[in-house]
């Protein structure tokens, strides 16, 4: 009791410091709990998604051209395999992705695959989530069911129109809804979209057909990622024998539940590790502050300690009072931290869902919380006890002498009688020298705090701008635009021509291929000229200059047991060649860097690559994008679709017709190069496929935007930025608006609270968008799908109004009333 009394008196003395320490402890506790809980949930979220959807847990995907029926037999005849099924899937080839315009006008780029509903039902239960009501979906001309990831990360809603550009051909779909899926649920391995049979056949004209073999394994066969990989290797060895070549050349894909967990949870794990790291810094700061504060308190209260000792208090009791003081602070901080963790759970859930693309909730393992609680308290008590024990060194008489044990009171540093300059400066320096240890501790605390704050700001910045901070990550060229040309275009010529454009600062090209070192797959990169790259670095050694040199990631080298200067055998496309490791390169993924000549030793015909375009400072990226589209925009499909015209000279019309015929040969018959020569009288008109045609224009921002869109929106919802956080959805069929639209007279004002939006341009436009003048919110409508979406830029909880649904709070009611007035329902 007497110790408690002393501890409470210490509290009274420095309330603000105590509160600050409590706050820091609270932050530390909350961050650590969030990190641990989030880390666990990263896995359970995916596990639950598989469980809920009843999805098969393993799948091999082969290009149809590479597939042999024996592969299926290898799988189905394995005694460990159960529930095997075979279905078809459309996928884009390696380098190309699809671009898609989001509602806010920004363009994202991602990988996509397609299946029909019948095939999806072979893989899983096709568990539908947020979707159009009733029969609305069936009435859509081109319905598409997309994975939850698209909803969570790109802000689309059921009924929205989505335009996917696949190999430069635009496909317009209407989102019927979103569904939960175990496999192919994110851009990491493609969004698996479910479309109608008719649309599927149409898309098949552009994408490659793939055969998918999905199955489950008997319980206990595989229980970890490594075991799944071992199983895969076992099966692929058998397939290798059947195919007569290495699996890397078969072009297959293996997916497993564990692989999905590793891939999707990896980024969460990294983020949680970062959170853990920040929490660690805060904890260390707390411990340093406690240590420093006790040292200060003991110093300041030395005489009072002497009095207490004179009164008969033992050193244990006095030091116990200090420990108790920080124990109380620690307990209070940890309790508040736990409350914050509980309160942050919805936010955490949304962030995890956005990361992983599953709308499942996952098991929340709160068991970690007592562990963190105990750990933090143990650290606090240990630190306090460790420092408070110094009181033992001060029996009462020494305490009265302010801790000096003898009559020797030490050297007088910087004596004032020798002061020449400002006396205040002299006194300041004296004070600094007099408290060297405490000042060093204080300095360390400030450095740690500064570090953690800077780290948090950097991380917030990275995710806030849709992952823009990542563009500075070494190992990935962060140029202004990436251009992917049709296969018929010569990459070197294209790069040279682009580099000649007045808007371009420089242009270079990059080619990627898969290679194998010691049985491990690596992504091999070839840059035309490493002197012209801006973000490819080595930590040791140099980037490759000769055809037998390769630079690899240091972690890969360590894993495989290599060092710089070692000779290694690298295999690709069945050819194996010897290379020398010339440097450790920084790379985003497990990668290796070659020269063009070096790569051609194992890949005589390089894959079609990407032209990296670096624009001059004053050039607008969007303007340049338009320029490129205009100059190289006609894809084979677009050329074929062009109607014959009577305009232009005879030669122009002939050339146009010839180009259409070439496009037909390339897209329909797989021709790579076509030349033509047409004689009309004495005139010879000739040409060929030399004309460069762009397949895809994308940028780093678009690629990252597809991955981190959800989190970016989440970050933007913090004060300071507007956000699209309120959402109201309603069907308007048979409403006044619908009728007006049919009569082509639609125009309606929309007033919701402070919002005042003029929605609708009339004249039968079936979809559009409008914003209020202050940018607080707006409305998008798609009358074809009879849907109206209101979105509000004020930070309110997300909600959706469905027929018969409950409106969460007053704001929703206000929206609803306004919508009712508007729609006449």
């Amino acid at each position, binding site marked *: 009791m007497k110790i408690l009394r002393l501890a409470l008196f210490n509290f009274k003395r420095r309330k603000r410091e105590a509160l600050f320490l409590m706050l820091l402890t609270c932050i530390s506790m909350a961050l650590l709990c969030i990190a641990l809980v989030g880390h666990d949930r990263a896995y359970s979220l995916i596990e639950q998604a598989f469980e809920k959807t009843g999805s098969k847990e393993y799948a091999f995907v082969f290009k149809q051209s590479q597939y042999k029926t024996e592969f299926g037999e290898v799988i189905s005849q394995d005694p460990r395999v159960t529930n095997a099924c075979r279905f078809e899937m459309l996928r884009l080839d390696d380098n190309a992705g699809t671009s898609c315009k989001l509602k806010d006008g920004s363009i994202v780029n991602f990988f996509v695959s397609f299946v029909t509903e019948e095939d999806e039902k072979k893989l899983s239960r096709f568990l539908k989530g947020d979707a159009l009501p009733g029969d609305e979906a069936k009435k859509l001309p081109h319905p598409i069911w997309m994975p939850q990831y698209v909803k969570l990360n790109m802000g689309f809603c059921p009924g929205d129109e989505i335009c996917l550009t696949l190999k430069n051909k635009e496909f317009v779909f209407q989102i019927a809804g979103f569904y939960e899926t175990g496999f192919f649920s994110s851009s990491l391995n493609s969004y698996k979209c479910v479309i109608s049979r008719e649309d599927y056949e149409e898309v098949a004209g552009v994408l490659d057909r793939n055969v998918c073999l999905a199955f489950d394994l008997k319980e206990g066969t595989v229980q970890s990622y490594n075991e799944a990989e071992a199983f895969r290797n076992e099966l692929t060895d058998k397939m290798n024998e059947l195919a007569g070549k290495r699996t890397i050349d078969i072009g297959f894909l293996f997916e497993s539940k564990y692989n999905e967990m590793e891939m999707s949870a990896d980024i969460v794990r990294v983020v949680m590790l970062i959170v853990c790291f920040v929490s660690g810094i805060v904890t260390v700061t707390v411990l340093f502050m406690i240590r420093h504060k006790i040292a200060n308190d003991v110093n300041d209260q030395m005489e009072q300690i002497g009095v207490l000792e004179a*009164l008969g208090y033992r050193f*244990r009791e006095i030091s116990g009072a200090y420990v108790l003081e920080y124990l109380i602070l620690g307990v209070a901080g940890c309790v508040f931290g736990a409350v914050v963790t509980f309160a942050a759970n919805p936010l955490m859930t949304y962030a995890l869902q956005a990361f992983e693309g599953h709308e499942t909730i996952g098991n929340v393992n709160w068991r970690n919380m007592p562990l963190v609680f105990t750990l933090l308290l143990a650290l606090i008590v240990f630190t306090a006890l460790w420092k408070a024990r110094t009181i033992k060194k001060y029996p009462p008489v020494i305490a009265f002498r302010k801790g000096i044990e003898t009559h020797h009171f030490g050297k007088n540093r910087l004596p004032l009688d020798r002061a020449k300059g400002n006396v205040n400066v002299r006194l300041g320096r004296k004070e600094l020298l007099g408290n060297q240890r405490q000042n060093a501790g204080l300095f360390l605390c400030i450095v740690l705090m500064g570090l953690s704050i800077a780290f948090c700001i950097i991380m917030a910045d990275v995710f806030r701008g849709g992952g823009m901070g990542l563009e500075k990550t070494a190992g990935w060229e962060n140029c202004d635009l990436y251009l992917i040309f049709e296969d018929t275009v010569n990459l070197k010529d294209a790069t040279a021509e682009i580099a000649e454009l007045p808007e371009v600062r420089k242009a270079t090209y990059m080619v990627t291929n898969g290679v194998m070192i010691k049985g491990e797959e690596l992504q091999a990169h070839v840059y035309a000229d490493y002197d012209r790259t801006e973000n490819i670095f080595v930590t040791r050694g140099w980037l490759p200059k000769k055809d037998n040199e390769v630079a690899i990631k240091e972690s890969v080298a360590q894993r495989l047991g290599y060092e710089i200067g070692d000779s290694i055998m690298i295999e690709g496309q069945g050819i194996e060649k010897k290379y020398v490791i010339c440097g450790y390169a920084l790379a985003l993924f497990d990668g290796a860097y070659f020269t063009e000549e070096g790569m051609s030793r194992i890949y005589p015909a390089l894959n079609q690559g990407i032209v990296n375009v670096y624009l001059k400072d004053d050039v607008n990226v969007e303007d340049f994008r338009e320029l490129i589209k205009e100059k190289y925009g006609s894809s084979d499909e677009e050329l074929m679709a062009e109607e014959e015209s009577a305009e232009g000279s005879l030669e122009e019309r002939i050339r146009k017709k010839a180009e259409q015929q070439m496009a037909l040969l390339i897209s329909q018959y797989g021709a790579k190069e076509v030349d033509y020569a047409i004689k009309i009288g004495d005139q010879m008109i000739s040409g060929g496929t030399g004309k460069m045609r762009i397949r895809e224009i994308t940028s780093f921002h678009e690629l990252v935007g597809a991955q981190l869109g959800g989190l970016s929106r989440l970050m933007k919802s913090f004060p300071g930025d507007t956000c699209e956080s309120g959402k109201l959805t309603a069907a308007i069929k048979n409403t006044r608006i619908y009728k007006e639209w049919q009569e082509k007279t639609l125009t309606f004002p929309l007033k919701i609270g402070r919002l005042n939006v003029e929605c609708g341009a009339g004249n039968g436009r079936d979809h559009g968008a409008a914003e209020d003048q202050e940018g607080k919110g707006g409305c998008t409508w798609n009358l074809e799908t009879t849907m109206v979406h209101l979105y509000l830029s004020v930070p309110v909880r997300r909600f959706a109004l469905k027929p018969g649904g409950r409106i969460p709070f007053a704001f929703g009611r206000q929206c609803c009333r306004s919508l009712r007035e508007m729609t006449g329902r």
Partner: protein
Amino acid sequence: MYNAIKLIIIVIGERVLDMASCILRTEKLCKSFSNGGRQQHVIKNLDLEIRKGDFTVIMGASGSGKSTLLYALSGMDKPSMGKVLFDGTEIQEYSNDELAIFRRGNCGFVFQSIYLLENQTILDNVLTGALVVQKNSPELVRKAKELLNRVGIMEDAWNKYPNQLSGGEAQRVGIVRALINDPVILFADEPTGQLNSSASKDVLDIFTDVHQKGQSIVMVTHDLKTALRGTRVIFLRDGGIVGEYQMEPYGSEDLKERRDGLQKFLDEMGW
């Protein structure tokens, strides 16, 4: 023969009586400090007995070892050599914890700088001293209040903080804090050193009062007026006792005569 036996019995009796009334005794007490690598002997082979009920005043020039002797006697500091016997028990070998327990039961302290705990009220300051020995109880609180009343600290000041009191008032609170546990000996280190004459008189009156009620007191001072309150004055020089002067209890004789007698003793000591 009879007279001789009677004398022996009387001498032995007085000796036994002396032994019985002696509560604190030192034998060949030495205390030295290291000062810049050089040993400085502050107390040298000092033998001293403190009797029960005595008001012992220790005087001497600055640096003569008065405070060092007080701290060694009270168990606040350990001697370098020699013995300190409290009620016949050697305390010089006690550990710091044992000394703390010894102090809480037997000693009360009044300091020159008062050293009240700044963040505690007057009543809490007194109770801080008490709660180390006994559990909190209404009787204890009542006793603290009675003692405060006795030294002239009235109820309106009980919840004040030390910096709201005058020096004299604060020192009176210091005395109450020292007395709350009914110590065997009350040690005071220049208790009026920082007080004006009026406040000093009030404080000394309290000391006289508690002494008259049977309290043993050991006080260090260099002030004649303060020393007049004692019954025995010990004069220190260079770490050793060079003279001792006995007086009747304060108030029982003419003050002028008392002062002259003490002044004469101090003059002889070269004070």
